[in-house]
């Protein structure tokens, strides 16, 4: 507790040098949710077994997500020349050969390698920096993802972690710190794109002695996993951002809100909090500054709407996650009736670098009023699926065809679903839109949480719309009847259309119901809930016509069995 930050930094640096110096091989295995789903656990087990059998020494770490999810399980081993050699996707049967050659005999296996990072690399192996997914990136919030052990605070500190907090607490006033955030032009990455500094200033103005900083990692959008990805890969960057938010706004307590069941992000965040408390980076009188801040993890049950800011507060308080009326806004009456500020994980994760390098530095990245980077989750029919951080302003075409390697199997792209189910769909003709909050909104889409689901020509636009509405229907919290009943009604009509049993007035009826949902719902779920249908009708009206008039599905998808649960919320 009594150790100075200088001491912590020196010791962390020494340990990092030892780890990366190449004396003892350092084996890092991608084991975020994407790695686990690809079988990282059995690969790790096998690695330990092989090391034991050969009786060789190596450090094995579970790291987060480097972003190349398509190549998971991804294993990288340091080479004596300082490079990191990546193998992936690693099958269990390849582990013995990799360990024996690379670790025991010190002969890295070029044939099985995906690429290298840093140093001189290895003959016949590509520099991963030139990989399409890596070369367009500018990693700010993801700077440590996949590189450091998220359960070792020392590795975060050794890479510049908590420097920003130390700098702010020792040499900047809360007002000066806020000014940097204002200058950066940072806007909320949860979907609404509200200027973060402005939001913080609302809370800073409140004179209530008890205020809260809430971090939203509910992340229920199918196709988005970047919030969970940050918590699993580099939880301290979020914690540091939260403490800085507390310093600016005068709050002393924070909650990280995560959906129950996502064990990786939950455990790693809890462990990070524990380690930060142990070093006195969380708790009373941080770095002797007189400022105190603490954080706890709060879990929610399965409910998509609990990611809505006021429903989130209901869930932390232990109630049904249903949105509240606004006003009063959270900055006046929030969690437990106290002034509160809610930010998305990504938003807060940018803050340490903004304070470290200055708001002007951040504001130079991006275009127009969209500053900084977009942290995208690329899923669906793409050659390279994964998580990337690229400067705002890049076009969707670049994202799909350069970063994600295009659509595999020689198929054509048909549609994109961006920003979560409520974001609706874009057609393949709209790829010249850039990643820009205003431009996306103008095109009738949102950047939202950063999820981009690409669907190829085999996808039926009507079936896709039905799937999106099935999700929205299931997840309606039920508080506002236009949303609760409207979603069910629209889903019934879409089911009819998919069975080629639609009735002549169905489209008009859907539009009316959609209007009522928009006008009569408290939160975005009902207000935006018609987006999937309206955007699909706009771009794929012909396909609806074929289903409704010609009674056929051009892709045949609607002839296959489909399943979705009906909401059981009571």
């Amino acid at each position, binding site marked *: 507790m009594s150790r100075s930050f200088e001491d912590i930094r020196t010791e962390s640096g020494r340990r990092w040098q030892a780890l990366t110096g190449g004396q003892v091989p350092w084996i890092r295995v991608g084991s975020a949710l*994407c790695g686990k789903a690809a079988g990282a656990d059995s690969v790790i087990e096998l690695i330990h077994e092989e090391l034991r059998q050969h009786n060789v020494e190596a450090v094995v770490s579970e790291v987060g997500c480097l972003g190349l999810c398509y190549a998971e399980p991804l294993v990288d081993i340091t080479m004596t020349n300082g490079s990191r050699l990546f193998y992936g996707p690693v099958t269990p049967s390849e582990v013995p050969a990799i360990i024996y050659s690379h670790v025991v005999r010190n002969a890295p296996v070029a044939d099985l390698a995906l690429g290298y990072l840093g140093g001189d690399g290895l003959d016949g192996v590509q520099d991963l920096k030139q990989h399409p997914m890596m070369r367009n990136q500018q990693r700010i919030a993801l700077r440590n993802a996949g590189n450091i052990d998220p359960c070792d605070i020392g590795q975060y500190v050794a890479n510049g972690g908590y420097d920003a907090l130390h700098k702010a607490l020792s040499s900047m006033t809360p007002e000066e710190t806020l000014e940097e955030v204002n200058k950066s032009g940072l806007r909320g990455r949860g979907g609404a794109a509200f200027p973060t500094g402005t939001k913080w200033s609302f809370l800073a103005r409140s004179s209530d002695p008890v205020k809260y900083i809430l971090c939203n990692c509910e992340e229920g959008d199918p196709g988005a996993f970047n919030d969970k990805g940050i918590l699993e890969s580099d939880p301290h960057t979020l914690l540091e951002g939260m403490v800085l938010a507390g310093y600016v706004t005068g709050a002393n307590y924070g909650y990280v809100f995560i959906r*129950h069941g996502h064990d990786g992000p939950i455990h790693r965040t809890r462990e990070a909090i524990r380690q930060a408390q142990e070093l006195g980076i969380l708790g009373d009188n941080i770095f002797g500054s007189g400022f105190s801040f603490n954080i706890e993890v709060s879990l929610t*049950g399965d409910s998509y709407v609990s990611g809505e800011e006021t429903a989130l507060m209901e869930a932390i308080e*232990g109630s049904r996650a249903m949105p509240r009326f606004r006003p009063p806004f959270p900055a006046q009456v929030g969690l437990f009736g106290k002034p509160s500020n809610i930010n998305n994980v990504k938003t807060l994760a940018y803050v340490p670098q903004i304070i470290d390098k200055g708001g002007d530095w951040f504001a130079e990245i991006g275009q127009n009023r969209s500053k900084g980077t977009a942290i995208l989750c690329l899923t669906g029919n793409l050659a390279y699926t994964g998580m990337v951080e690229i400067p705002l302003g890049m076009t969707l075409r670049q994202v799909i065809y350069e970063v994600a390697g295009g659509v595999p199997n020689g198929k054509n792209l048909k549609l994109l679903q961006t920003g979560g189910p409520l974001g609706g769909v874009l057609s393949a003709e709209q790829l010249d839109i850039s990643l820009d909050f205003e431009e996306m909104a103008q095109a009738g889409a949102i950047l939202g949480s950063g999820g981009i689901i690409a669907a190829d020509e085999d996808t039926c636009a009507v079936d896709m719309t039905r799937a999106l509405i099935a*999700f929205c229907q299931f997840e309606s919290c039920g508080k506002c009847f236009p949303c609760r009943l409207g979603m069910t009604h629209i889903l019934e009509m879409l089911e009819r259309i998919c069975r080629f049993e639609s009735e002549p007035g169905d489209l008009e009826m859907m539009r009316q119901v959609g209007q009522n949902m928009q006008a009569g719902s408290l939160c975005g779920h009902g207000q935006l809930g018609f987006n999937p249908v309206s955007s699909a009708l706009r771009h794929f009206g012909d396909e609806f016509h074929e289903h409704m008039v010609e009674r056929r599905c051009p892709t045949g998808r609607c002839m296959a*069995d489909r399943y979705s649960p009906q909401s059981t919320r009571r």
Partner: protein
Amino acid sequence: MTTDAEGLKERVNKALNSQDQSTITLLSSLLVVHDELGYMPEEAVEEVARYTNSTINDVWGVASFYTNFRFTPPGTHTVELCWGPSCHVMGAMPVVKAVLDALGLDSESDTPDGKMTVRFNTCLGACAQGPVISVDHKLMGRLSPDVARQVIAGLDGEGVE
């Protein structure tokens, strides 16, 4: 494994008292008890009500809202199938069909012999690896209907390599 009332009460209270965060609520209490038992029997609902100083009605209200809570014992194995839009595009429906057909089910439910529970999940969080399922909380990605059938057969003890 105990079914008697005293044993159950003890397990519930042990779970309730294991909460070490400073904000303990009705929802946080439900989550730890559900983790311990796998479902919420009436006796557990009553204990949560007592522990959180709320009414049984309040507890039912919260428990019936979040779709992860169930009120009857789950099967020996629980298979969660992602049906969200991302996995849908990547071929979730044929995987869901393969699993349901293999178990003789029409939709999410338990098999009559009580061995298997099938649950639809809107997002398991590993979207880049879709279609995703989880078997007893272990994630599996890039599933094909064939592999899904093998996984189910393996759980059923019907002998699969």
